[in-house]
């Protein structure tokens, strides 16, 4: 049997993290192809339901990436995202999911290498954890 390849959905904010992913791409920094990027205008618009729907769809890990605190294009969207993630992690814990299944990370526009590194580390973490109980083989 081939090695387990986790699938990750990353909600990346338009102003920082998505741009960081672009920088990683144009700088030709390699990172695993396990991640699907979904551009959102702000990490603050990522509702708890988006994360739950992603898990329902079979993703092994969900990442919310936004600007560093204080850098938000909309002043405090990332603080909202932080609050959402804190609360949602408690729900996911009751549901029996490991803490790592949901990750919150601040990545600034210039931090392309950090973006690539974060994805690499996250894939390794999820490989150790194994597949999510909601994983569907259709999602690759």
């Amino acid at each position, binding site marked *: 049997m081939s090695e387990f390849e986790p699938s990750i959905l990353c909600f990346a904010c338009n102003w920082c993290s998505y741009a960081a992913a672009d920088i990683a791409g144009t700088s030709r920094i390699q990172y695993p192809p396990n991640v699907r990027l979904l551009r959102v205008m702000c990490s603050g618009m990522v509702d708890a*339901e988006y994360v739950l*729907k992603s898990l*329902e769809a079979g993703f092994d890990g969900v990442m919310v990436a936004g600007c560093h605190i204080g850098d938000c294009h909309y002043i405090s969207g990332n603080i909202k995202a932080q609050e959402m993630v804190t609360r949602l992690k408690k*729900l996911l814990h*009751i*549901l*029996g999911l490991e803490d790592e299944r949901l990750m919150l990370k601040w990545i600034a526009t210039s931090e392309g290498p950090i973006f690539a590194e974060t994805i690499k580390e996250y894939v390794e973490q999820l490989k150790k954890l194994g597949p999510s*109980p909601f994983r569907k083989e259709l999602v690759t």
Partner: protein
Amino acid sequence: MSLEDIIQETKTFYCLDCGKCTGLCPVSRYNPAYSPRVMLENALFGFQDDLTYNHDLFSCLTCYACSSKCPGDVDYPLFIQKARALALDAGQHGDCAHSGTVQSLARLMSNPGVSQNRLEWLSDGLRISTQSDTMFFVGCAPYFEHIFDFDSGAIDAVKASLKILNHCGIEPVVLPNERCCGHDMLWTGDVETFRRLAEHNAAIIKEAGVKKIIFSCPEGYRTFKEDYPKYVDINCELQHISEFLADRIAENGLDFSEVKRKVTYHDPCRLGRHLGIYEQPRKVIAALPGIELVEMEHNKEESLCCGTSAFVNCDSCSKQIRVDRLLEAKATGADTLITSCPKCQIHFRCAMTNKGEEKGPDVEIEVMDLVNLVANALGDGHNE
């Protein structure tokens, strides 16, 4: 199930077109476009699309106010439940409140691979066992604690229920891997998820070998009592905690300390019109020394719904229903609104967190679950 089957099962063809349902409907009062009578008429004329593509199909509160007075005995809420399944097949669904978190969690819980950590709230010397004949069904309360940005009070009611059971010498079985009862799934038309949840719950209850299940949530109670038998076998005696308490008080009386409160009781639709339990909670309240119970203008069979059900189509209309109910409670002069449904509590508390600039009428009143009221009066060193 086709539309014809639904009409047969809910006896829609007995509709006299009298419009009593629409006259009584709490939703129609604020949303004149919504009419149960017209819904039924559309079904009888065979206009299936007018039914399934009607957004208001999901506005019904399934509170049974209509059917309780229907001269033709048409089961309108059941009709709505089945019609929603049809609508779901056609790709239609209601607007889920709280972005659909509650529904998503129920769907995730229906996955057999889930192993939950749902008993971490157990503390304060609450005793449970694995050997008892009696089980306590916790339901979704551990999740409710973290879904809302206000205190839902649901888990406190569960703790209070356990305190009461412990006080009565019962150390109930509380299963670490029970799932959502599926009530919201069934009433929003997702029958497949409901069936999976029901099968799972039936299997673990059978394995636990209990003979009696006690509920503090009327939705779980109704679902186990009325809906589970259509899908699974639960050979257990089922009891709501208010029934349990009323029996205990009638048998040997419980020692209560004095409660200096003036309270009013809100009948949850599931416990009241769905299952006909009106007297037991009132008996329990009356047994508390020093308490004064006053009734709202609409009470018992005429009780108003709290405004939202199954966390679907929560809009300005359901907000208005909640505000009206809270004003009715305040008009009695009571200082506490007692109910015995965690969801009624959530909806009332939600209505009280009006964040808008225009605050509207003052609807602040203390909302409390019946079991909290009783547990506080029981002493045991757990006083408020």
